[in-house]
């Protein structure tokens, strides 16, 4: 029995992917263990868990692959800031500390926990890790054929956008855009300006776009992010990210777009700051879609391929991905991996290790890994919950609860691989109960009023009510794309749609999944369920029964469905 580990870390969302005898068996995020969302640094706790669980030793571990070339990344950022040492002193100072505490120390940190020899530690190019994470989810029959992988990132090693060509176990970079000409950093700058957290609030900006007008898009494309052909050039006068880690936008940016926006005091869609932020969000969305579309079209026209993948942090923009697929010729098979960000790049690193070790590609269709309930925490179900019904008797009760407008948490073995809740660790309710959906969004999840909730449905329901991409349908299984509602979309489910009549739908096709069976039972009564992640806003998704209890208590949700039955929380007296 041999193992390969792929590790991502030090920037955000540290993760580990584990292969056993070449098969993908575990994917863990450090945040699941620390309970601090977006945990970065070396994933110590996830690694220790794997060492204990699988008895990992020097003998059993073949390779450990880190998801980037740390020295390349460090020198890129440092030399860039050395060009203007006085202005960039804060960033330089930050970089010097990174030299000691950052990814350059990966090997020594790893070897403190797992005693393996230096020759078993490898480093994969960052964008190649992204590309391979996507290739892992490509249909097996085309994965070995010529493929183009489009990576849209903030910055990884020294690249911001890349096209990587793979054919079986041959791979080469066919296009790269070097730092600082980054689409991801441009998007993050607007995120920062609008008052959302960088590397965390980008999806909020995406949701906001539906309320705005693209009044700045042309200006941005002509002056800030100059777009010519398939290349972009950032005018750095608008940005501060090359000078300081404290702020992304420059004074020039403020002089054009006004004071930075804060959502702390925004209450309605009529607020001046809301309108300004929505217009910026829509404008940057148009810019991002324009750039992505032109590069993808350029790539597929220049290189013959059986399919393409789109990955990197920017590929998490499901609205841009949905619009891109609608514009591409229908014969092009597009795969956006379930975890396109840095966290998922750990899968690519492990994939890289497998090819080095056995000259074979990695493939999986699984969407749920790890996160099995800890036996030592099973007592929580007995002491903090009351059992409502056993698994064989719970169907009728659950159906009644959902039809009656109740909100239910789900906790099944195996945690979702990406950032989206796919019904294993979800909070669900009927989409045809407007007041319940509103309660779930604003009172329970305490989300900003402009953010939509995502629906889950059976394949035939999705076909009936949404415009779907036939060749890239697989992406809807893990909510990688938004889909536009058809004109016949039933008004009673309108709570499942965003302001622009799109939804980031999940098609559930796994006949063994309890929620699939529930949707079949409820057919014609409740065809669409609302599905949001099982967590308190700002916290990681639940990992065990203790998290279930604390999250439900904080959220104020009573019911929990698991493989062992339906439970009701016992509230503290």
């Amino acid at each position, binding site marked *: 029995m041999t193992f390969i580990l792929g590790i991502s870390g030090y920037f955000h969302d540290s993760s580990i992917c584990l292969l056993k005898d070449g098969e993908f068996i575990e994917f863990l995020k*450090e945040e699941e263990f620390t309970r601090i969302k977006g945990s970065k640094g070396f994933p110590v706790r996830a690694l220790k868990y794997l060492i204990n669980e699988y008895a990992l030793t020097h003998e059993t571990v073949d390779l450990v692959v880190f998801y980037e070339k740390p020295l390349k*990344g460090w020198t890129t950022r440092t030399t860039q800031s050395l060009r203007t040492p006085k202005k960039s002193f804060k960033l330089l100072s930050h970089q010097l500390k990174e030299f000691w505490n950052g990814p350059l120390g990966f090997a020594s940190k790893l070897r403190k926990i797992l005693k393996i020899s230096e020759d078993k530690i490898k480093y994969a190019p960052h964008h190649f890790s992204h590309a391979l994470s996507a290739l892992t989810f490509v249909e097996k029959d085309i994965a070995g054929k010529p493929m183009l992988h489009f990576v849209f990132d903030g910055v990884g090693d020294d690249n911001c956008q890349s096209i990587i060509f793979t054919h079986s176990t041959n791979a080469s970079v066919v296009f790269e855009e070097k730092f600082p000409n980054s689409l991801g950093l441009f998007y*993050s700058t607007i995120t920062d300006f609008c008052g959302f957290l960088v590397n965390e609030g980008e999806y909020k900006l995406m949701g906001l776009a539906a309320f705005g007008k693209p009044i700045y898009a042309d200006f941005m494309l002509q002056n800030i992010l100059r777009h010519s052909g398939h290349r972009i050039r950032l005018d750095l006068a608008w940005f501060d990210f090359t000078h300081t880690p404290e702020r992304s936008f420059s004074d020039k940016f403020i002089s054009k777009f006004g004071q930075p926006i804060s959502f702390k005091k925004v209450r309605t869609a009529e607020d001046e700051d809301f309108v300004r932020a929505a217009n910026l969000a829509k404008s940057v969305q148009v810019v991002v879609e324009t750039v992505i579309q032109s590069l993808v079209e350029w790539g597929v026209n220049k290189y013959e391929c059986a399919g393409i993948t789109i990955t990197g942090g920017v590929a998490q923009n499901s609205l841009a991905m949905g619009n891109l697929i609608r514009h591409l010729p229908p014969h092009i098979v597009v795969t956006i991996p379930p975890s396109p960000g840095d966290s998922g790049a750990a899968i690519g690193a492990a994939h890289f290790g497998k090819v080095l070790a056995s000259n074979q590609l990695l493939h999986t269709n699984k969407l749920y890994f790890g996160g099995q309930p800890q036996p030592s925490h099973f007592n929580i179900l007995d002491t903090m919950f009351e059992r409502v019904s056993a698994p064989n008797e719970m169907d009728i009760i659950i159906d009644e609860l959902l039809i009656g407008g109740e909100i239910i948490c789900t906790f099944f073995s195996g945690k979702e691989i990406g950032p989206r809740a796919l019904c294993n660790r979800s909070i669900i309710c009927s989409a045809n109960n407007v007041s319940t959906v509103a309660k779930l969004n604003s009172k329970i999840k305490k989300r900003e009023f402009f953010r939509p909730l995502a629906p889950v449905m059976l394949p035939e329901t999705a076909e009936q009510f949404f415009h779907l991409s036939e060749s890239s349908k697989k992406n809807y299984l893990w909510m990688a794309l938004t889909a536009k509602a058809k004109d016949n979309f039933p008004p009673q489910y309108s709570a499942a749609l965003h302001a622009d009549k799109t939804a980031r739908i999940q098609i559930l096709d796994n006949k063994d999944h309890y929620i699939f069976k529930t949707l079949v039972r409820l057919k014609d009564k409740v065809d669409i369920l609302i599905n949001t992640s099982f967590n308190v806003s700002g916290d990681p998704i639940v990992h065990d029964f203790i998290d279930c209890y604390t999250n439900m208590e904080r959220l104020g949700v009573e019911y929990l469905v698991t493989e062992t039955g339906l439970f009701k929380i016992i509230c503290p*007296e």
Partner: protein
Amino acid sequence: MHTFAITNTVLISNSLKGKVRCLMFKTTSMSRSKNSGLTAEQILQFSLAEFSSAIEMIQAAKMVEDHKLQKGFIHHALDEYKHTNFFIGLLSKAENKRVVFDPRLIVSANFIKPERFLFEQVSLVHFAAFIATNEANALKIFTSIRDEVKKFDENALNKLDLIITEETEHLMAMEQEKFMSGGDEANFFYDTLLQDEMRHVEFSSRFLKKQPSKGYIKIIRLKSSVATRFRHLWASQQTFRNIIDKTISVFVVLLLLPFRSTIELPSKKNKNLYCNLSARNMI
């Protein structure tokens, strides 16, 4: 996606550094200028201290074997989450719009070390003593900011008082129940932790005094107290440490400047990316 401009997180952790008078777990001590009122940075610090305390308690609940203790830790964590939300709510009304709560700050501002949580570092008795000491600090601070919270937001003050009242009633009931039933060692700890949460410092001291080895308890309480004072002292010297940091940075940057061109790495072209030799190096 790497965005090394960490922006908000770094901004706030930097702004906090000058003000944080505590480094870890539930130590909300901070110096305030007499006339300045409650600033957004200070409110953020309270929220981070409460949040880090919640995380430590959740971790303790996941590691402890005793089920009653586990339950106690969970409820303690829930209280701390509630307090976190209280301060986040207060923060939303603060003037400085750029100061926002980010859970990652508890690591970057050194409130917590996720590689080793407190419960993994010390024994149960030490854990209790540490909490007792730091909850006493928290009690002092919360008492001292009461008037400023009132100035800040009358409604918020009512909420703060309500939280304290509810928890006091809850814990008094628990305390009576445990002592009436005699209680085992685990329950004693559970009570102590809850009392700490309720800032009943006197009661926690009484509990620790009931431990078999009074000398030992004295020593660990002293140790906790000294350690807390030392951390506060260390944190309060941030300006001094910043000067040292800056001096070293300037020195290293000056050393690097002449070698700017040599630091830039040559780019490699058209190589098969699956290259074992290349995979061995960090470039």
